[in-house]
């Protein structure tokens, strides 16, 4: 069970941006979605999630809005911005390149 705090900070940003691409969500939903899609491998703790969310918000890649959630309570929903989409593409490309390179090395070594 790897904790995303082991990952580089930028990777968590990438996960968040990707998760928000289809629709706007609140923090809890983002964590759950990541957990779900990664087959329970990646479990994002609140201690990493919220600082990351607020940092990304400061940088202008996501925008926040308070809305009524599915439970009826007010929650803060985050949505991707245009700049965020661009950033997502860039980071995805980066990640693909990086992971391909790592794969090469790992396959070589073994």
């Amino acid at each position, binding site marked *: 069970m790897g904790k995303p705090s082991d990952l580089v900070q930028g990777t968590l940003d990438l996960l968040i941006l990707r998760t928000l691409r289809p629709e706007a969500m*609140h*923090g*809890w939903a983002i*964590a759950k979605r990541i957990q779900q899609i990664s087959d329970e491998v990646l479990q994002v*703790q*609140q*201690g990493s999630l*919220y*600082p990351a969310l*607020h*940092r990304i*918000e*400061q*940088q*202008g*890649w996501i*925008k926040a809005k*308070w809305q009524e*959630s599915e*439970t009826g*309570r*007010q*929650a*803060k929903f985050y949505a991707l*911005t245009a*700049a965020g989409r661009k950033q997502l593409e860039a980071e995805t490309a980066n990640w693909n390149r990086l992971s391909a390179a790592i794969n090469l090395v790992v396959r070589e070594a073994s």
Partner: protein
Amino acid sequence: MRLWDRWKMAFRALFARGVADARLDDELGFHLEQQIAENIAAGMSAEEARYAALRSFGNPALLREQSRSTWSWGGIEAFIHDARFVSLSIGRRPGFAFTVVGTLALGIGAAAAMFTVVDHVLLRPVPYLDADRLVTIQETDGSTRNWEAPWIDIDQWRVQSRSFSQIEFSGKMSGRNFLEGPDAALEVSGQRVSPGLFGMLGVAPALGSGFVSEFGKNAGAIMLSDTVWKEVFAGDRRILGKAVKINNDSYTVAGVMPPGFRYPAGISLVPQVWVPIELSSDERTRDTDKAMQFTAIARLRPGLNVEQARAEMLLVQKRLAAQYANDVLRHDHASLHVEIYAETLVGKDVRNALLALLAASGVLWLIASLNATNLFLARNTSQQRESAMRMALGASRWRLMQQTLVEGLILSGLAVLLGVGLAMASVRFLAHELSQTLPVPAPATLDEWVLLALAGLTVLTTLVATAGPALLAACTLVAPAIKQGGMQTGSSRRQNRMRGALVAGEIALSLTLIATCGLLLRTIYTLHHVPLGFRTDHIVVAHLSIPSYRFKGRNMTDSLYMPLLDRVQHLHGVESAGLMSEAPLAKTFVLHLELAMNGKTTHAYLKAVTPDLQKIFGFHMAAGRFFLPQDTAISQPVIVVNMAYARQHSPDPHNPLAILGYKLLSLIKGGPQMTIIGVIDDERQDKVAEPAVPEVELALPQITPESGFYQPVETVAMDLALRTDQPMAAIVPELRTVLKQASPELQNATITTMDQIVEDSYGSQRLAAHLLEIFGASALVLCMAGLYGLLAYVVSQRTRELGVRIALGASRGNLLWMVIRQAGVMLLAGLVIGAGLSFASGKLVARFLYGVSVHDGWTMVAAPALLVATGLLAAYLPARRAANTDPMEALRAE
């Protein structure tokens, strides 16, 4: 995100932080709720679900902090938070804050005061435009003697030289000048200036248009200084175009210069007025009897420096000198001195003195900062547990450091405010002494440079005083600090050693200051005991500037001087009174005599005196007699010389007194030569530290208007001396009444005592000694406080241990010795380092010493002894407390 949204966020983060906080809480709360709901759905009971959720959530406070740290303005928020906390803690423990602020204020005040003076005197002594591009040009024979130049030379410089964009010149109006005012005449310093001079200086008149920049267009005009305008004419704006009288000559006011403007700059408190130079055809000659001589001041062309200008001008001058009439003159005018004007105002020894004092104030500042560091260290140690708790709760090390730094910054800021107040007060307090030595009046206000320096000083002080302790606080190990019980084992040995080292450092620096102060005090002491050659007690001296224009056509000896002397002698309480051109060491008025005797040209001082001076000053005649009342205008003309003169000019080189009876000079051209009737034993004339210069004295009653000496001797200045047992407060008003009777201008004469004149003549040494006394005393106090603080702390830390020792059988003496020994180690270390530093600094001040060697034994023993005594005094109370520890109390206390 669009710029607008960004600004909105930043705005909200700054001003609506409370709202943002609440929102963050809501967000986290929502997350928690969802987690709880999930846990319940997974099958846990409500309570279990809640606990599990909280556990997985982690530290909510930390979470909140981390999220908030991503918001902008985090730095300012932390600063404000710290500042509030600091003010709370100051309120709770004012003693600590007072001590720190007081300590730092001493150091900062000293440094600020010295820097203000240095900035005013050395960095910006003259209020002209681009003053560092202005140079003076003086003709010289290549040695240190120099002269003013005639117009014809200056004109040649203007034509031939390429180094200057403008050359202007000025000279002094002859004699003493008096401006007639409504009540009485005010003495002013009258300056003749070329019409373009003020323009070159870059200063425009505050009132009026000033002089027209061409020769010949300013007939009868005059410019007043702001002081004259305010004092005599009460700042009347209708002064323009009105007529004013200087020495009975009428001038029309063309303008008033701004306040604070002086030209020439230099030591003088007499207010100035300026008249334009009008050149007549008489001026176009090199004959010094016919043409006025001027001081030239020029502005360097952009891109040139002084050396280049000097090199070029030397070539020009070579060609020019050839035009002089004879060989002597050609030699005398062969070379030039070209120097930056501002640098000529401050003598080299004054500059060095100021810089040395600045360094000394820096040392004091360092001592104060070290003291503050010690205080912070002590305080932080007692707060160790609190710091450990904060770190356990999640504070970062940097955050802990921040708090100490902010506290240091605030306290330093307060100390700067207090220190500046101290500095201004002390500058005012020492204004008289400063004005004796410095060419510009002592500053009373701050300016940008000084404020900048102060800001820098604040930051620097903070860093020095708090960086160390802050780092230490941040590096405390959490577990041991929380585990330990109470304050008893508060600080580690390492910390105590560090504090001890700081105290030793303070002691070393203080020793340097005190030793240097001691050397200077010894110098003053030696100067005090140089035999002056005359008495100085109970002598009142009045410096008279003579309004000779009132006595035109009359014999001032008979109409002014003798009647004045007579009246003064009849004042109540006056034993004897006399007149002389200049009181010894007074530096008010010096006459130079050039003599051609035995084929050589020599120089001597010339003075006119009255006979009673011997009764007043009690000087000793080496041979012959002094003047007597019988030496009048109709008796044989006589002259008195001093030993220095006799040694130089005696016909018999082995017996200076053989000069007695020789003839020298004549009072009136073509008249009988004067006979040397007496030789005075040498006196100090200019400076106590310098040996006597050849001097020649004439009897004032013998000088008549026909004499060539009449004009220089009688029409400019005279000192009146009287021996009295009355106190100053009683004699001065009566004296002023008598002076006023003689001539109204004389009532404002400066009246002082001979003792004061001697004191003032010590100049920069006395100033330096006084300042170092203050610095040294402050350093001593700081050291004592530092040592006491550390020892008291250590003793209070070890109360338990001391109790155990006593219980185990140690005697009180043992405990006393323990503390004293600790103090002794620090003192010894400090003294050893300090001795090395003092040797080094002694070399720096060697030039100020007189009659005292750098390794003066007396000082080398007294200074350390003083420190040791102070140290032991500081250690006494803690030692006594240690010795009187009640073992039962100590062991019980916890």
